[in-house]
């Protein structure tokens, strides 16, 4: 009997233990928080790509009208302490720029490039590899270490499978013809991710319309993906066209507004524009004398606008037109940092967009006011500018602006100011065991 009780008692204790054990409240292990730091890379020189190249090469047919090249080429490099790198140059100062005027041939027009410092991750919205178009990506490495750039392309069908990986030696420059990577993409957005200190990327967008040049310009670096962007300087003469190119890496819904000198301008059918992830979308911008496109999205987007200006053909079929184009990269309005640009030849005006009301001033390196304008909120202005080439201009923070270049007979280009402070980048540092390769 006692034996029976012993066994039953033990069994009861065991069952009670199971029941009681379920009542122990568990503690949660606390994971150590990773360190979120900002790193400020060493200041790197700015770099420019150099002269434009003729996509088909300089073919001399004997007839200046039929040849691809041109005898009228003026190329200007402006900046402090310039030194050559590849075909381009480096400059030590806050801003530098190059401008090139080509009077005739396939790449006739004004092509201006703002020199920029290398970054690891950059977006260039612009370019086309459709028939008659050439997109030449120029990667310049101004740093002392070699870098490896991965070029990812986005088109009308989203992110393209074709990628290119380019190694650039320290102080070197590499060209990559995007049509050799993927052809027949009429609207491109390019992402360049580089290792190390990064790389400077410029994209030469050259177009032909049959035998007639349809414009050439440098596509400069646009703002990193952001929810609020402004493209200033979309104002153009009556017969020119302006196209806004948008892309959201993860998809977004975008509201577009057009600001003019007197405030917002009616622009129908562009509210609630849905961008599929990675799909490059183009929107026609109404013609306006002076204006800017404001972009508000619910997720980060990249954008740029292309202005195409026609001109009569000097010596050709009667109905043919020649054109020149200029790319206007979107600028981020939220960082509230002053930007600087270098004045080159052919600069005629500064186009400004004000997010909030205030006075916009442009000062030169000595602090003297070169231009100034009182502006209302969400309005634009085009201020004629008369400054000597080589002047370093700094604009008031919180305004987005760019320098407009024009020349006879209808050549246009744009210089976009750059932030001169060294941007710090966030980096998350975690402690993690290491067991060997592949573990």
């Amino acid at each position, binding site marked *: 009997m006692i034996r029976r009780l012993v066994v039953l008692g033990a069994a009861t204790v065991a069952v009670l233990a199971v029941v009681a054990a379920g009542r122990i409240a568990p503690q949660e292990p606390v*994971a150590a928080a990773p*360190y979120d730091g900002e790193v400020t890379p060493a200041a790197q020189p700015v770099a420019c790509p150099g002269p434009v190249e003729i996509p088909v090469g300089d073919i001399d047919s004997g007839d200046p009208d039929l040849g691809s090249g041109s005898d009228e080429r003026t190329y200007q490099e402006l900046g402090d302490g310039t030194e050559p790198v590849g075909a381009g140059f480096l400059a030590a100062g806050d801003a530098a720029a190059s401008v090139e005027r080509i009077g005739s041939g396939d790449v006739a027009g004004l092509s201006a490039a703002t020199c920029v410092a290398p970054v690891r991750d950059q977006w260039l919205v612009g370019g086309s590899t459709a028939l008659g178009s050439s997109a030449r990506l120029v990667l310049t490495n101004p740093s002392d270490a070699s870098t490896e750039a991965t070029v990812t392309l986005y088109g009308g069908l989203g992110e393209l499978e074709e990628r290119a990986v380019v190694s650039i030696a320290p102080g070197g420059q590499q060209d990559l013809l995007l049509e050799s990577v993927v052809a027949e993409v009429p609207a491109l957005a390019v992402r360049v991710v580089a290792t190390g200190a990064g790389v400077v990327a410029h994209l030469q967008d050259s177009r032909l319309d049959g035998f007639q040049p349809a414009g050439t310009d440098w596509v400069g670096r646009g703002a990193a993906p952001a929810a609020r962007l402004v493209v200033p300087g979309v104002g153009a003469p009556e017969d020119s066209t302006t196209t806004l190119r948008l892309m959201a890496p993860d998809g977004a819904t975008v509201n577009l507004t057009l600001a003019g000198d007197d405030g917002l301008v009616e622009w129908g059918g562009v509210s609630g524009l849905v961008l599929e992830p990675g799909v490059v979308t183009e929107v026609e911008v109404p013609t306006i004398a002076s204006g800017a496109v404001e972009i508000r999205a619910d997720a980060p987007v990249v954008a740029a606008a292309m202005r195409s200006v026609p001109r009569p053909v000097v010596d050709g079929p009667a109905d043919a037109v020649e054109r020149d184009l200029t790319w206007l990269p979107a600028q981020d309005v939220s960082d509230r940092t002053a930007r600087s640009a270098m004045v080159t030849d052919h600069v005629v005006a500064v186009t400004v967009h004000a997010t909030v009301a205030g006075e916009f001033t442009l000062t030169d390196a000595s602090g003297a006011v070169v231009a100034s304008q009182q502006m209302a909120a969400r309005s634009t202005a085009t201020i004629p500018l008369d400054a000597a080439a080589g002047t370093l201009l700094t604009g008031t923070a919180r305004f987005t602006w760019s320098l407009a270049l024009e020349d006879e007979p209808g050549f246009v280009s744009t210089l976009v100011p750059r932030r001169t402070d060294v941007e710090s980048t966030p980096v998350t540092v975690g402690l993690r065991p290491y067991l060997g390769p592949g573990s």
Partner: protein
Amino acid sequence: MSPARLLVRAIVVSDGRSARLRDVLDAIAEQTLRPDILHVALPEGAERPEAPDGLAVDWRDGSRTYSEGIDAVLAAHPAHPAELLWLLHDDTAPLPSALAQLVATAKKRTAAAVVAPAHVRWDDVSRLVSLGVTTTRVGARRIDLVDEDDINQGQYDEREDVLAASLAGALVRRDVWEELGGLEPAYRGYGDSLHFCRRAWRAGHDVVIVPVAKVRHAQDGLTGVRSGSSRGRNSSYGLRRTGEWVHALAWAPALAVPFLIVWSFLSAATRAVLRIAQNESRMVGADLGVPWRLLARLPRVPGMRGRIRRGSTRPASAVAPFLVGTRAVLSTVRSRELRAYDRWRAQSAPSDVVRGELADAALRRRGAAALVAVLAVAASIALHGTWFTALVSGRMLTGSALGVTDVPLDEMWERTWSGWSATGFGLPALDGAFSALLLPAAAAPGGLRVWVGLLLALGVALAAVSAWFALGAATRSVWARGLGALAYGLWPLHLQAISDGRVGPVIAHVMLPWFAMGLVRAAGWHRGEAVGGGEEFPARRLPSPSAAMGAAFSLAVIVAAAPVLLPPLVAVVLVAGAFAGRARWRVWTAAIPALVVSGPGLVAAWAAGPLTRDAWAILARENGPALASGVVEPWRLVLGLTDHSRGAPGLPELPGTLVVGAIGLGVVAAVILAVASGRAPWAVAAGLLVAALGVGTAAAAQATVVVHADGAGEAAANGFAGPGSTLVAAGLIGAAAAASSRLWLAGEGRRRSAIRLAASVAVTLMAGVLVASVVVEAWPGRAERGDVHPASTEALPLVATLEQRLATHQRVLVLTDTDKGVDFTVLDGDGTTVVTGRAQTAADGAPLARPGSTPATPASLAPTVATLAGAASGADEQLAAWGIGVIVATPGSDMIASSLSQLPELRLIGASDVGTSYRVARPGSDAIVSRAWVEGDAGEVTVLDSDSWSGSVDGAGGGTLVIAAAADEGWTASADGVALSPVDDALGRAAFGVPAGADEVGYRYEDEAYRWWWWGAVVLVAWAMIGMVPLHDRRYRAVRS
């Protein structure tokens, strides 16, 4: 000299503590030839027994020692010519004819100085106690010429001349006695007869034994009766053994004396080890005390040697024929062992029928054991076959919890010896048990890589085989043993522990059956082999001291591997001891080594506030690989399930659980049957209680965070339910097996048939479940339970590991790109090493060994790493300050590699498919980056040669000694033998001020508390290891005097 009439003067000396004096006097009174004079020397005040009628007794108050008593009598009575002394103790009673025969021989052998009788047992005169003694040529071992308790059949009656005999009851010529100066006091009563007789031979006399003359000898002094000791013969062992060595010193050539003293120490140490193996722990002290007693008597040796020299007329070669050589000693020892064995066999000899049954059972058992082993190995191969080929091809097992396993021996040794955990910037370790546990594996051929790999790969087989042996104590049914063993080996939480690389719980699971078996056998509760109609052989099982030591050793291993099992298993030992009757102390000692091994943890738990959750977290700490795991319900723990087992492939929740938990369900069903049957109630109840303890332990462990982020990369983790679940498995399987014992013979008639049928069905079902479980676990599409996998032993580039191994002992910073930045770790060895054991930190990051302190950890390097990631300069200063001489960008981490490439202060030293390495230079100095250095006031740097916990240099000069390790009170440094005082360091490193002109500067980590615990654990575990050798416990043959 042949006088017609010899005078016999009988002298009985008593210390007043023997109750046999009256019997002695009676025996003298009954002599056929009475002594002429009888003196009885008693201490003053001692009670005088009544003398027998007609016996004239001259009572004397003498001193307590035997020799002084005789001297007092002789001093009072001048010598007669031809006088013989008959020397009697108060426990020697001569048989009636003894004196007559002795005197007859004395008359015949005129040259005899000593005529000695045979000693027989007090209570049985047919049994011999002593019949002459001799010694070895060296003299340090006394050899009895007859075996004790040998039956006297007259076989020794021819014996006459012997080297020596006991003087008790012997006739000694008074002139020789006085010539030799009586007994030698240096012997303190043990060995003085041998000495006297040997001197008599050398002085030109003979020593004769008279086998037919018998004296009953109670050996009161030898057996400790006089001193009131309860230890019997052991009580006088130390004195006897010392006497033997004194004899050796007295008779050896003078030049040999120093060697003999050294030898005595070696001999004592060897005998002490043997004592431990024989589980005669109290004799260890006696043996170890012998050489010290000998040293104390050393001053008397020159005098003895002088007396020998002066008194000798015969050369030493005269007695040489009596001395025995090595061969005789060996044969004496062997015959002693054989006799003991014979006695044991005679006591427990089975009949021929039983012998036949035992042979059948042994055959069945061996066959089943082989089958279980083969099946278990097959299951191991089915589950982790790829690991074997990887191990053979030189790869190692690794995993996020396991870390790298190719850890060199010196790293393991430094960790356990120094008490300094080199992980990260180093931390004071709570204990070194885990690395000590794996040290033998690291020292064995193949190293830790092979043995940890085999432990995990063969984890199932090892556990099954262990359980097979342990279950033999619960049941003799090979079916129940086999199934139980395989169920234990395939216990799902054990499989989880193997796949996670949790080395500690795997070792605990393998060792627990051995502990259980040791405990059961220590208490004598194990089953005998089933013979005949239900009897067991042997019918009465004796508690085994060796088994208790085995349990102690196993428990020490278990708690080193899985400390969480200490509280439940100590509770089991305590309760088992309480029920173990006379074996209780043996059983209770099984807990002692484990408690000392866990000592630092127990102290830390006490300091954290006993009975708090913090204390429990310390008790439940995990020493080795640990991993956060999902908390599961207790009923899953009973079935051995983890949160990984929530589903089998293609099966939803509940059916999946049933499939994976089938073994557990089978075991639980068996236990329910066992409870219902009422068989083996105590064993079943004990098993259930152990299982209940296990459930509680597992649930409490998994609900507690036992590993805290230590700032060196280790992630926090809650306790693993595995060790507790191991207890559940052991308890349930043990209970079921115990109840199954002799089930085949249970009941009668139809009932027996029904039981046999049901048992056969159950066995078949369980076998099916086991096979199905292996198939489910090894199913190709099933997700792995854990992430242990084979990998190359080369985690870091060779250039980096070389720098770690050099005397500068640089650390390596490893950087890996992530989506948002970079991950880093600081390594002291080739990859993150966990198997050396965790330093143990509290939730606030303070090491448990130093509560309240805030040591510097690699987490403080995060901003520096961010600087590197941004390719900004200035990181080298911090890195060099912490002895980081090499930075490795892991393969595929191109972003960080290119950042590093841009930094002018880093130099690319190699790129390979295991990473890109950069060297860090010491800013402002040409000296190489090192673990420790002396920084002069003018900025000059002298690098020390270091390992992970100590270092030194010659020609240091003055300045500051900086050790690139977290500051701790355990760091000590000295310059030219003078201790240095610590100085504050802004980074939290250990630093010391070095006086100007210092030459030899050294530092080391010294933790006194750790050292004491370490040695305590080593001594006790070694003791248990020697003690668990199953040597038969045989009484040492007494040396009688």
